[in-house]
């Protein structure tokens, strides 16, 4: 934990703080159907044309049910669209490598994964997806699932800010405006900046390079039927091959990666995701990618404060997020910098920390920071392999996801998840002082609290339920890459990531099987839509209420007491739900590692 690393952390947080207000102010304009931006001359005609084509009256607002139904229908249609492309990939153009169609379960998993902003990947991009699949089937959802999340957050905030009305805005207008005015312009600039760092953007077939030194590799010998040959003892027979060429991946990467980060999608163009030198070429591209993950989520807290005319509340929510973020970074960074005592006893320099699964250009600090950022948000891009982190280093991303990704969070999803906790915190405060809880002038009563708890419990039940099922079934254990408590962590991480719509993985787990693809797909649907419906019901309820003026008993939703109470609520709920499972995974593994136990 060197001074240079501390300095990078300070620069990162300062940069994030600096863009929060401008982003929030811009969001105010984008999320107002009549808001004006400096891009109007260019985009206003396109926006009007889109409404006419789609048949939407932009001034016509929807109540919470209409808004939710529109969102659900759109998600269904776009999900089927992607499923169809993936299944028909072999017949469609822009497939220079001649990749075949995806299997039904993999196409289901992938279509659901991108629709729900999860971007879990049971496949390896560079050997599965045609350029068309990457550019259309997947990138479409990178935009729309992000825009959907932001739209829903805006609807909830409108529900809080408005009173005595039924409507929350128009889903189609929010979707289109967020895509056109917010996501597209930033991505256009961001993608070109990424190319300047070395990211590819072309439509060439893969390049074959002649290796400087031919490489001898040892591979398992196979017979004519393609089955591995074994010796008398049953061990595979190895033979030496000489490799003289390297096939270098090409394709339209930068346009996809820009929205992958900004929209907290996280689905990699290639298997190694942002660890790959093309997908994250330099420490500068790494810094910008980390900043873009948090940019919109952070701006939304300012948007919240502005909308409810209580900027201190917006900043208090932001402060609570930052406190949890810094706690996570410090624990993860400390654990990775301390490294693995088992390897150090074998002669590895302790000062270098744990470098398994990490890239030299990022080192321990930027890998730990990226892992924390990507799981605080529901991004799920990785620049180092979380599976190879030390037990406590890997605990941080896992716990971040299980808290519900409310630390800045996925675009939109982070804010509406956090507001559930805010309502809960206010409710607890009300109980403690014996008054009817109020949040910004709205009474928080039994129905509101039920909806908030439903949103939280869906997550816990689904994560723990699916993980428990996998642990006692042969299909669940078949995919493991590691034994002992680390195996449990792999399974727990997979379902946490799917339910939380994160998409990162303890990637040793092999999940491209019908069982895993299907259960993870169901977990992603549960985590996204079963959480959204109660939250939208809550939004509708809050919008209808009258505002009661603050009294002496009103709990202030800004300042240190509020932040402390909010943090307490989040950690208490998270700990009660998941600590038993975490104890059997990363915590036990940490203790065993200190004793040099191997599996």
């Amino acid at each position, binding site marked *: 934990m060197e001074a240079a690393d501390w300095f990078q952390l300070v620069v990162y947080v300062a940069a994030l703080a600096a863009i929060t207000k401008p982003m929030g102010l811009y969001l105010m304009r984008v999320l107002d159907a009549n808001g004006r931006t400096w891009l109007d001359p260019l985009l206003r005609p396109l926006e009007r044309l889109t409404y006419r084509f789609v048949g939407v009256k932009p001034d016509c607002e929807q109540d919470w049910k209409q808004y939710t139904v529109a969102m659900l229908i759109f998600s269904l249609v776009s999900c089927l669209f992607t499923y169809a492309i993936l299944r028909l990939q072999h017949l469609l153009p822009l497939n220079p490598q001649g990749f075949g169609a995806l299997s039904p379960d993999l196409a289901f998993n992938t279509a659901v994964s991108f629709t729900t902003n999860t971007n879990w990947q049971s496949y*390896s991009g560079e050997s599965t997806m045609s350029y068309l699949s990457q550019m259309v089937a997947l990138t479409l959802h990178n935009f729309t699932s992000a825009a959907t999340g932001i739209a829903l957050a805006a609807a909830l905030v409108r529900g809080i800010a408005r009173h005595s009305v039924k409507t929350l805005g128009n889903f189609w207008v929010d979707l289109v405006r967020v895509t056109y005015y917010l996501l597209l312009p930033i991505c256009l600039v961001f993608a070109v900046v990424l190319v300047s760092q070395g990211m590819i953007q072309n439509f060439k077939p*893969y390049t074959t390079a002649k290796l400087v030194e031919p490489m001898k590799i040892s591979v398992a010998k196979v017979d004519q039927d393609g089955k591995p040959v074994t010796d008398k003892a049953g061990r595979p027979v190895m033979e030496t091959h000489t490799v003289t060429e390297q096939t270098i991946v090409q394709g339209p990467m930068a346009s996809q990666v820009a929205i992958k980060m900004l929209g907290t999608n996280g689905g990699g163009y290639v298997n190694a995701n942002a660890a790959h030198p093309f997908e994250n070429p330099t420490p500068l591209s790494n810094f910008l990618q980390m900043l873009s993950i948090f940019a919109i989520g952070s701006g939304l807290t300012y948007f919240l404060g502005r909308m409810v005319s209580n900027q201190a509340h917006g900043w208090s929510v932001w402060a609570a997020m930052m406190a949890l973020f810094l706690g996570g970074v410090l624990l993860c960074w400390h654990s990775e910098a301390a490294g*693995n005592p088992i390897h150090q006893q074998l002669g590895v320099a302790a000062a270098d920390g744990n470098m398994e699964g990490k890239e030299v250009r990022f080192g321990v600090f930027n890998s730990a920071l990226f892992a924390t950022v990507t799981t605080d948000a529901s991004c799920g891009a990785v620049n180092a392999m979380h599976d190879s982190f030390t037990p406590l280093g890997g605990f941080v991303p896992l716990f971040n996801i299980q808290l519900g990704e409310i630390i800045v969070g996925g675009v939109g999803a982070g804010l509406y998840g956090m507001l559930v906790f805010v309502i809960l915190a206010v409710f607890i405060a009300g109980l403690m002082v014996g008054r009817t809880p109020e949040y910004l002038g709205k009474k928080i009563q039994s129905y509101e609290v039920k909806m908030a708890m439903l949103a939280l419990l869906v997550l816990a039940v689904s994560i723990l339920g699916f993980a428990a099922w996998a642990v006692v079934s042969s299909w669940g254990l078949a995919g493991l890459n590691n034994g002992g408590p680390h195996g449990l962590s792999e399974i727990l991480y997979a379902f946490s990531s799917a339910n939380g719509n994160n998409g990162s993985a303890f990637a040793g787990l092999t999940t491209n099987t019908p069982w895993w693809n299907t259960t993870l797909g169901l977990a992603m649907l549960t985590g996204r839509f079963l959480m959204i419906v109660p939250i939208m019901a809550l939004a509708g309820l809050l919008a209808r209420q009258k505002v009661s003026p603050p009294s002496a008993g009103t709990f202030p939703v800004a300042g240190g007491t509020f932040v402390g109470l909010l943090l307490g609520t989040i950690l208490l709920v998270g700990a009660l739900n998941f600590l038993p499972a975490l104890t059997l995974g990363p915590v036990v593994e940490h203790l065993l590692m200190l004793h040099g136990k191997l599996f």
Partner: protein
Amino acid sequence: MKTLFSELRAAVMVTLVLTVVCCGMYPLVVYGLAQTLFGDRANGSLIVDRAGVVRGSRLIGQGFAASKYFHPRPSAAGNGYDATSSGGSNLGPTSKRLADAVQERVAAYRKENGLKDTDLVPADAVTASGSGLDPHISVRNAGLQAPRVARTRRLSVEKVLALVRQNTEGPDLGFLGEPGVNVLRLNLALDSL
């Protein structure tokens, strides 16, 4: 029912319009700008020799085993530096397979570079990277390999270390990330001496 149908129609139309804008116009505009402004990088930062043969990419590591070359990190991409199957080992901290591999690599590293049994080995030299294609090794790792390379090539260690310095990249803007020695570029520079 009527509203449901009109919402369904809207969903289909929005999907089509956004596909055209976000998946057609947007990547093509980025493509045009990238190829115009940063053509070399947008096409993979390829290294082409005098005969016009592509020898690799400045960003993608290659495997090296001969004594006259600097050696890259162990790789878990396919059978090693297979650029069509990027990825890490994904072996955890208490994995016996990983510990055995590290032990073997530590012994091999000490032997080929003439180190004592008590000398500490740089972590990057005995661990696989996240991508399996990491183009870099740490500066200390390169420093420990330099005497071996110099001896095999009958060059002075100073000369080799000067090339190491020339092929060290980062930190960006003077403070972001870690410095790394680009192994492919360094080895090509040695070959062209």
